[in-house]
């Protein structure tokens, strides 16, 4: 239980940190920020890799989680990079 309290603390602090960090973003970067953040939410891949493997059902669930998180990670970062490379100042 102590662990949860500690991690709950980390959770709250990170949310506040995020709100402070991102509060002023120029509208030009709204889409790349959203898409970049979306790629970060692919961190679920780490969670998927931590799953246990007891029986066929668990294997299927783990495979699905890894597959979809990977699509999120690779697709998210690549599309963000493609988008950002278009923003140019002449």
């Amino acid at each position, binding site marked *: 239980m102590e662990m949860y309290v500690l991690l709950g603390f980390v*959770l709250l602090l990170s949310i506040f*940190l995020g709100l402070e960090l991102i509060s002023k973003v120029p509208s030009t*970067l*709204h889409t790349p920020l959203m898409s970049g*953040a979306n790629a*970060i939410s692919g961190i679920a891949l*780490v969670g998927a*890799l931590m799953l246990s493997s007891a029986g066929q059902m668990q294997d299927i669930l783990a495979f699905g989680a890894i597959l979809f998180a*990977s699509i999120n990670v690779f697709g998210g970062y690549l599309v963000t990079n493609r988008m950002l490379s278009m923003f140019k100042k002449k």
Partner: protein
Amino acid sequence: MENLANIQVIQNIIYIMSSVMFILGIKMLGKEATAVKGNYLSALAMFFAVAITCLSLEIDIKIILAGVLLGGLIGSLIAVKVKMTAIPEMVALFNGFGGLATFLIAWSQFNEPDNSMFQHVLVMLTIYIGGITFTGSLIAYGKLSEKLKLGKGSIITNVFISFFYLSMPALIYVVIEPSLIGLVPQLPSYFVIFLVLTLMAGIGFVMPIGGGDMPVVISLLNSLSGIAAAFAGLLLLNNVLIVAGSLVGASGLILTIIMAKAMNRTITNILFVGYASSGHAASSEEQGEVKPITSDDAYLILENASSVLVVPGYGMAVAQAQHVVREMGELLEGNGTEVKYGIHPVAGRMPGHMNVLLAEANVSYDLLAEPEDVNPSMDTIDVAIVIGANDVVNPSATEEEGSPIYGMPIIEVHNAKTVFVLKRSMSSGFAGVQNPLFFRENTRMLFGDAKESIGQIVAEFKD
């Protein structure tokens, strides 16, 4: 045993390191000069976090390789092939997959023996948020790519909306279920019912929301996928999941608030009420005549203008007119005219939609201005060209108190000396409000496809 403990320590140190990199990365992503580096940094953080997790695996390595390689291939293909105009639905789709991953993680965790009460609650919450993010994003994808036309009012939509409301008591039931054992008769397979209901609920959540409100919905779903990941982190006692998930949750929340403010509406109003029930303004009757204009006349006026403001909207995206718009802008500049682009935060279907399209067409980003920047000097603008935008330039928002969009910050093009409105027909905008701008003394309507109309002006300039 000691070896295992050592591995855990190393893993946690690397997790903290990648958390810091994620924080710096997302911070850099918020500034034009550092955005590209920020994205690389966060990708590197992801790589470290994933690689170090692989030091202690329970799952068969073949399953992992198959999943990562296949997922990586599909994701990369989509990312490389997608047209820039399809970005909004792409982001929605990727977001949905992230939600699905957390949904499956929590499901797998549910199957574990001896979960504590607290873990049980976390499992259910993660499933709920992840599931709603998944199907909600799929519906957003369908709506944005115009494959799904169902909206508010249809029977199917109403059925799904009732699933959404049913899912809330269901969530409460599954959360307290373990403590009910012996008190009430057990519902067989309640968990499967909950899974299905959650997925249905996501559909019912997004389906009634209209296209013009999509910037808010996409940002919110983005935020939810982060929160789901953070909850999964709590469940698995993993700090990098918590930090990265919270950052995404926070950034999505900020965008949601920015979008809602730009419409002067509350988030609940956008999600659960919509425009239809905000009451109709009765006053906009005395409309008068519209003054149509041809491309030739428009060219003559533009040729003599010394300052031009282009205000794009969703119509520009539909007509794919961004490239001709850039061409016209360059020709005008060559003619000695000062050209600026006025971008409203909610123009288009996602936050920053117009900025992406114009960037794709090679418009320099320092020419793009926000409403606060262009409104004070609007009366010095010779010609404001409105391309497929409607509600974001509707003067009712500042002048007509009864109007459903009253109070929404707009780009006040009606104060410019002349306004060109490029439009296909006289239909009203997403909000369903008639736009008095079209009937103003200084407004000229250029009817037709925006791409063709501007193409003709460009051709005249070249002659």
